[in-house]
């Protein structure tokens, strides 16, 4: 109920911990995209969906990127393909630490 916060009244936490990623977790473990979600929620809260989609597009895109990592994977994919192409043409050999023969570091 909107005006009757039962959970706060009784001091129980039945479902607050799984509503958003940034909710209070036991042992204070943060979510992976905690910062991005916090930014987005702070930007988009209380202004309605239509306005939030226009004004908070940047934060939303970052948040979705953090979760899905589509842009990251696409970037890595491009680099991989280029690397394979160059290796097939013989123009590029990876340095030893990329072929598993690097010196061991802690």
């Amino acid at each position, binding site marked *: 109920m909107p005006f009757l916060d039962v959970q706060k009244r009784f001091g129980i936490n039945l479902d607050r911990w799984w509503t958003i990623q940034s909710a209070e977790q036991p042992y204070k473990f943060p979510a992976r995209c905690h910062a991005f979600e916090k930014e987005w929620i702070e930007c988009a809260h209380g202004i309605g969906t239509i306005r939030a989609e226009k004004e908070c597009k940047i934060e939303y895109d970052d948040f979705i990127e953090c979760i899905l990592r589509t842009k990251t994977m696409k970037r890595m994919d491009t680099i*991989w393909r280029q690397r394979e192409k160059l290796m097939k043409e013989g123009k590029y050999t990876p*340095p030893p630490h990329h072929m598993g023969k690097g010196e061991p*570091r802690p």
Partner: protein
Amino acid sequence: MLSDQNSLHVDGDCTMDMRTKCQENEQAVSMAAAKVKQDMPPAGGYIDYKWNLLRRGLSGYSMLALGIGTLLYWYWKIIKCNRKRRRLQIKDFKARITLMPLFQAETDRRILHMLRENLEEEAIIMKDVTGWKVGESVFNPTRWVPPLLVELYGLRPLEERVFANIMMYT
């Protein structure tokens, strides 16, 4: 013979009632029983039919008290031992907390080193590709985002990535 005595019709005498006839019957029956051999208790009754338990050992109450006392004593011992274990566990935690900055610094250095190597490799690989900004971040804000496993080990052989994946969860 018995059936003759039972029926009223044979005598023809209706004044004799059934009770007199039954008494006569019983005498005849007991005399007949003494002649049959039956399984009877021994003469003088059974001897030693009461329980012959020895009167030794602890009583029931004292055994119960002994059992419960032993339980309570060892419960107390377990409590003390668990408290000691808890103290040792706190010592382990303290050691881990003390050393955590060092390990974290090592890990951070290693991650940065690997990212730097990847960046240089990327510059070499993609220098022919038009419109490619080396080391471009996909995120808009210039915050430190912890790199993915695939970013760190992307250009390395697969076993290293698998190994790192396993080590991350141990």
